[in-house]
């Protein structure tokens, strides 16, 4: 997977990931479409340009590790590993269906390409930190990326790991925060304010960078530059829009919960295709 996708290709993959997620969530009548749409461009860039992984060898010891810590964005995560070649896209039909292995929160069992099961927030970063520590001590070339949500930063376990990773100078660890500004019940700012977020990371010994999380060029530039500073873990704060790509879903808490009806699916897919 070292072939470098063009920006057009990345945008095309992001559209595919959004379309898959919309279909999967609409058909399975599950939640979290807004969280999938906000992280689509991040995942497209990760798999298209950043991650050194080999779909033919999901257990390749020298692979980069991507942990999807915002496990509720499961549909798009499965879509991303399918589009990256880890499994046939037909398997996505089984998402959240009886008898399938694609649970409604990211699950590794029986799903190649998924490093770690998540769904309870605040688990991915400590585990990624442990991987990064082991990799660092072994002098390994592979890197660890953890994709997180903004609401997830309420979890104390993350700050335990942020403190640890900064102290241990784990510059082989990068987090990407899908900062879509909306959490489960309300806006992040009205729930538990994260700002000034970059300052917090800097104070914990990390190297933060803020980017437009829907600009594949900006995301690529930032992620290709990690570690942003030697001896510091990197925090890419990706400013995104919840529900991005479907105008009537954007910025609305409702789409953390509701599944698009078949009619809504048609208009949503049309919007994504035209984007």
């Amino acid at each position: 997977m070292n072939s470098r996708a063009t920006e057009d290709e990345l945008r095309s993959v992001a559209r595919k990931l959004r379309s898959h997620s919309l279909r999967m969530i609409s058909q399975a009548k599950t939640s979290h479409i807004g969280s999938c749409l906000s992280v689509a461009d991040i995942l497209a860039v990760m798999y298209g340009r950043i991650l050194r992984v080999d779909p033919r060898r999901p257990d390749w010891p020298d692979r980069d590790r991507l942990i999807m810590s915002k496990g509720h964005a499961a549909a798009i995560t499965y879509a991303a590993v399918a589009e990256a070649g880890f499994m046939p896209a037909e398997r996505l039909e089984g998402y959240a269906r009886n008898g399938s292995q694609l649970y409604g929160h990211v699950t590794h069992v029986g799903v190649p390409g998924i490093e770690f099961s998540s769904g309870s927030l605040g688990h991915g970063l400590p585990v990624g930190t442990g991987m990064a520590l082991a990799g660092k001590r072994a002098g390994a070339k592979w890197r660890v990326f953890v994709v997180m949500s903004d609401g997830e930063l309420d979890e104390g376990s993350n700050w335990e790991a942020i403190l640890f990773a900064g102290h241990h100078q784990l510059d082989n660890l990068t987090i990407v925060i899908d900062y879509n500004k909306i959490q489960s019940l309300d806006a992040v700012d009205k729930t538990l304010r994260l700002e000034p977020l970059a300052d917090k990371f800097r104070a914990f010994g990390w190297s933060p960078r803020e980017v437009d999380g829907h600009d594949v060029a900006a995301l690529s530039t930032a992620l290709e530059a990690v570690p942003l500073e030697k001896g510091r873990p990197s925090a890419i704060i990706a400013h995104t829009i919840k529900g991005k790509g479907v105008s009537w879903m954007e910025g609305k808490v409702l789409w953390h919960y509701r599944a698009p009806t078949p009619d809504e699916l048609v208009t949503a897919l049309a919007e994504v295709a035209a984007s």
Partner: protein
Amino acid sequence: MRTAFIQTLNELADRDPRVCLVVGDLGFSVIEEFAQKHPDQFVNAGVSEQNMIGLAAGMALTGKIVFTYSIGNFATLRCLEQIRNDVCYHRANVKVVAVGGGLAYGNLGVTHHASEDVAIMRALPNMVVVAPGDPVEARLATRAVVALDGPAYLRLGKAGEPLVHENEPPFELGRAITLRDGTDLTLIASGGMLATADKVARTLAAQNLGVRLVSMHTVKPIDREVVARAAVETAHVFTLEEHSIEGGLGGAVAEVMAELDPGHAPLKRIGLRPEFNKTVGDQNYLKSLHGLDEESVLKTIQQIIARSYGRVG
């Protein structure tokens, strides 16, 4: 037990660079030698148990054999969901070690009384739960959990427990050790209560009772066969543990016996009452309040046996 554990872990780490130790800022005068000899295999996670377990799971998923180390409830309950999801669900090769199992830190307070940990760890899928009975078993159990590919919980007492085994017995996870045989009653003990059970067994044997003494060092998976045989071949079964009578060794034995055909021996669970301690005391003092001292245990057993003879007579 703590000393036997850390010495054994040191030896194992000498031979196998995969063996790592992650501590939650605890282990003063215990872990120093390991940390000095194996700096690349040692991590102090700080006072952050959730991260400690997450780190351990992450390290294990890259091929390490990772021991985490803290005091009873901090090692288990504080980070329970990390143990469930990160370790057990992923079958990560993490060995959760708790020191101070039961009332070992008696006068430090209820926060430090590990009285439900076995029940809770036992409920987790993929988890093997081991509570060695003396320093010999602690050494053997440490080796056994390293050889096991997957999660384990190792519940230790503190330092200075008496030796029960004179020699190293054959040791296999999930296989109880029978130290003495008889048909009048069976004492099944786990953890530090093995020493008490051993003394009580000797006293009862001197009174011409045939006593079977079993060390159930692995509480999960429990040795069903040994429990079933005790229930059928001996007239009484007693469990002894420094843990709540709910859900630990006594609970596990009760589950096995409840599904046996009718007509087996009755069971008495001897352990901690399922309540918070209200009185300050050291381990021995608090154990005596729960009837776990040698004299109280003996009395409990003798009363039950006398009652049953009364019924027969």
